């Protein structure tokens, strides 16, 4: 079975998703303060790698544990909803079809909630 990574369109699509996602996040006052403009490129690269691994890319290194990555942050439910909403929109911009988008969102949401399980 092809991985979600392949079906979504591989690295090319993920780059588009992440570009779009960060465009949105940095403009959203609810979450923009979490993103340091100086480190944006690095954060985007990290995000690309993380999504690639989560979706099952055969090439990526194991991704950082979500729990570890967000340890120092105070994150509210509203912020989570905001980020997930932007991610879903970004997947749309990258032309990921509805069913794949549902699957991707279902996975990412689960991984997010599971980080403190």
């Amino acid at each position, binding site marked *: 079975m092809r991985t979600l990574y392949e079906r979504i369109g591989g690295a090319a699509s993920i780059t588009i998703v992440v*570009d779009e996602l960060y*465009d949105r996040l940095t403009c959203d006052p609810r979450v923009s303060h979490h993103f340091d403009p100086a480190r944006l490129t690095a954060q985007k690269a990290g995000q690309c790698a993380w999504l690639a691994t989560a979706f099952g890319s055969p090439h990526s290194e194991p991704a950082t544990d979500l729990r570890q990555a967000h340890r120092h942050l105070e994150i509210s439910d509203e912020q989570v909803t905001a980020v997930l909403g932007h991610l879903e929109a970004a997947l749309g*911009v990258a032309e990921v079809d509805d069913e794949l988008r549902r699957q991707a969102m279902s996975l990412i949401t689960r991984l997010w*909630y*599971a980080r403190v399980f």
Partner: protein
Amino acid sequence: MQHCVFVDGLIGRESEFAAIGSALRRADLTGVVLIGDAGVGKSHLLGATLRHADLMGFSSSAITGTRALADIPLAAFASMLPSRLAGDASDLVQIRKALQHRAGGRPIVLGIDDAHLLDDASATLAHQMAGDLTAFVVATIRSGEIPPEAVTSLLKDGLAVRIQIDAFNRVDLTSFAESTLGGSISAGIEQDLWDRTLGNPLFIRELLLQARATGALALRHDRYELVQPFASPDTLVDLIDSRLAGLSVAHHRAAALVAVGGPLEIDLLEQLVDPDALVQLEDARVLAADEVDETLMVRFVHPVYADATRRRLGRLAARQLLRELATTLAASPKRRPEDILRIATWRLDAGVEAEPALLMQAARLATGRNDHALAERLAGLAFDTEPSLRAATMIANSLVEQGRHGEAHTLLRDERINHGDASDGDRFRWAMIEASVSFWGLGSATDALRVIDDFQSEFPAATNHAVAFRGSIAAACGQPIQALAQVPVGSAAATTPLGLFTVITSLTSLGRPVLALQTVGTLPDNDRAAAGAITRVCYAFTMIDAGRVDEALALGVEGWERAVRIGDVHGRVAWSIAIGWAELNFGRRAAASRWFCDAAELARHSAASNHGVRWALGGGLLASILAGDLDAARRLRDQLDELPAHDAVMYAHMEWRGRAWLQAADEGLEFAIASLLVRIAETKARGDLAPWLFLILDVARLGRPELAVELLGDGEFDVDGALLPTIVRLLHATARRDAEDTAAASDELQLAGFRVLAAEGAAWAWAMSRENGDDARVVTMYSRRAQDMRDQIESYATPAFTGGPPEVSLSRREREIAMLVAHGHSSREVADELIIGVRTVESHLARVYAKLGVRSRVELAEVFGLAGATS
């Protein structure tokens, strides 16, 4: 550890719980399967996991497999629906929707307790929901039990990991014991507990609770100590036994009846025992009751109780109870026709002589439920009492269904069979099954025809069926002309189930799928009869050949769901293959592979049909090789090599083609063509036109279009439908290097649902137009069409796609952006127009530049024939 998780009720299971948590955090998993012995605490751990998941923001749902409901499709999920199950495909959708609705965007955790007792349809649904990431599944399975295939395949497909739940170690034992009692225990108790229970939690719990209740365990200075030794039982079973032993005679009797009879209707039980005893046993948490189909069924709270009760019950006592159950149920006014089966089985187990007629009736019911092992046993007993032809035929049928064709063959020739009393109908059924075994089971058309000849000479009256059988053999052997000579369209034989199969298959073989569909008219609606099911599947195949792939897909999924629901293994295999074949042509090769793989596994597992295995493996081989997965293809070819020969060549078409494609990759094109030529000659000689055409098409697809046209010859073809005439047209156009006509044929193929072939045709048209030196704009037009069509399918590794110059394939979004930019819009304007970020536009554009080999907006505009627009 950063977070110290405290979960209520998890004493001694922290590491197993942590393992569930890590699985939940792994992106590549969508489930865990907890496996352990009875009483080890799987359900308990599952419950704690689901409660914790709810607290952590998940939406948890739970279902439970039960023996009583294991035969009722989707019963385990029924409680999730607001209304009753509709009993059709809409249930699957409704259950999924109900789960998602309840979750409201939160991630779903689906708990399945006792997954080994789940009905097949529920197991399949759970597997699907794990596979498409709808839910994370946590299932429990008792060690040594065989769960439904769909549950095992969660592990096999790598969707879930197995977590072994073992008995407690010493440390866990102590904390568990202390949490059970709510106070600390002395070292002596700990040692004693360990010696007796070896860490089985249910055992520990029962032992402690009983000891405290009898006063053997007492609290002294905040610490529990043993005042008297623990009660005598040495095992969990003995312990439960001693609990049961403490019950009154009436209680005993009630428990014993449930133990021997399985879950029982309350009405039936109340006729045999004091209703008060049942209430008391429920209070004592020995028995419980669930509603099944509006009937209250009584069962044990934990299966261990049933085992314990059965083990301590004397054999004579058990027989006595079974006899009572059988008699009471037989006399019950509420008896349903299907209760005959239980009555007969109980009588058998009770050692009561059952009259052959009852046994045969029960065997028929068992066959209807697809419990062929039971049918074999019942009919076997009937045969022992009275070796009738009818009983022998019933046993043979059960054996065939279990894939034991050899045994069936021997039995049908058994000298004990009393042919004298048999009615003509019995003899007819006997001959049909004998012919079936010889042909479908053992693969010999000659043997089967001999049986039919004998039969026909004896009973000219039943000629229609015999004739239809002959026709069906010819049809399956790829001899459509002979088959139709036997069973002419419109003849009486053609109206029998096998006649219908013969007509539809032969006309399709002759390249007249549309005529076939017209002739058959409306679809036969009898799925119970094997011939009915297979005719429906043939109907779907014919639709595909007629170029109605999407309709065939819909019909296929419906048929497959129905087969799953009624437990029809053959139907499931055949429908899976039909769906796989449609998907493969439609451009979803991954799904096609999955369907073929499922079908092969199921066919092999049920051992019901060698031709089914061959058919499915052949499909898998073709799908793998078209996907470019040589390793998988070779593996499948090796498996095919091991199968015994079979005369029914209609199931080998995909295999032949797959083998040839694999040969092209492994040994070279010439070898592949040589193999194809052999098959092309064979099919031509038999008049098997449709397969012949597909083989010739492969010659062209592998890179020899001129040879393909030569093979077609000059004659006109009397083929119909949207597909076959178009294939002929495509072959001619390709050989002429006529880009326009090739593209036109490709458009028609697209409409027929043969999207892979359409995309290949479009790619050829593009290559031809380039080679023919067409105007740049024309080439661009062909290139866009080729890209469009290719975008609609998954990647296929056929020469049309892999050969030739590297391809320029812009995604829809890239093309959209490129067009806007070529028309002179700035990135900002494009971003605003498409409501996306500027940076996204830039990254799309960078890719477009790289793909098209252009360096500026002006060059880009030129490629799109819009020079000047940007200035």
